[in-house]
């Protein structure tokens, strides 16, 4: 039984997405799954991150195709709006399912 359980845990760990292993990136994706779009400044406020760190995490998610960005001007100031892509939503759901499954297996 313990061997079977260990196998199940190993399988589930494989389903975890390394990209979402970082807490900020997971937070960004969950927030974008809940809301249609969030601006850079709103994400910064919610996550309590520095500009540099948030920008780096957003870029990683964008490169992997998890999020997309639209830039617009508001009162002559640039505003970046982020949205979760279909691919990002699927990846997030799979990751959250794996997390829940792991908790159930370990408890």
């Amino acid at each position, binding site marked *: 039984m313990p061997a079977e359980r260990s196998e199940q845990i190993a399988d589930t760990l494989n389903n975890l997405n390394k990209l979402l292993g970082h807490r900020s990136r997971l937070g960004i994706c969950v927030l974008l799954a809940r*809301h249609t779009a969030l601006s850079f400044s709103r994400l910064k406020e919610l996550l309590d991150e520095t500009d540099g760190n948030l920008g780096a995490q957003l870029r990683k998610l964008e490169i992997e195709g998890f999020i997309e960005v639209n830039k617009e001007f508001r009162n002559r100031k640039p505003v970046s709006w982020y949205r979760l892509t279909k691919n990002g939503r699927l990846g997030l759901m799979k990751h959250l399912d794996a997390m829940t499954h792991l908790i159930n297996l370990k408890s």
Partner: protein
Amino acid sequence: MTSEKIEEDLGYVKSLVDKSERIMNPPSVFILWAAIIAVGFSLVDFAPKYVGFFWMIASPLGGLLSGFLGRKTGRARGQLDAGTGKKHAIYWSGLLTITILAVLLGIRGFIHGAVISQVILLVVAMGWWGAGVLFDRYFLYLAGIMMAGFTAALFLDRYVWTAMGMLLAITLTAVAVHKGKKNASGAQ
């Protein structure tokens, strides 16, 4: 990855979502309805023949303006919620439709005079109570004032509607000020 770390991460994302959902209806919407209600309710006492005409214009226009103000506030805050906007649109347009159906009772002659206003008030009070449960708890207080006003109108016949309208307008303004302060201090 330990289960403690996973639970911590899940707790963290839950707190983020809770924080992001603390945005409620913008204060400007409450000010708008304070003005509409103050005028609309007073008309029942002072110019009853214009009540139907006023609400026929003010209700849908107020609804559209509220939607516009909500979207504008969302854009300014950097948070767009198409799902929430749709939920509000379905809820409030449903309430408007039910109110119009209640008005038809008067047009067809099944109910007369002050009873029409009373029936509409009950429908709206029920709608606002529902909004208090679903969207914003402040609607519960406003629905409570309407219920109290309904009861008062059963026993008194002078200026009850004006008093109720003023009380609702003052409460709506107080809610708007309270929300404005919360936004300014970032306590939301």
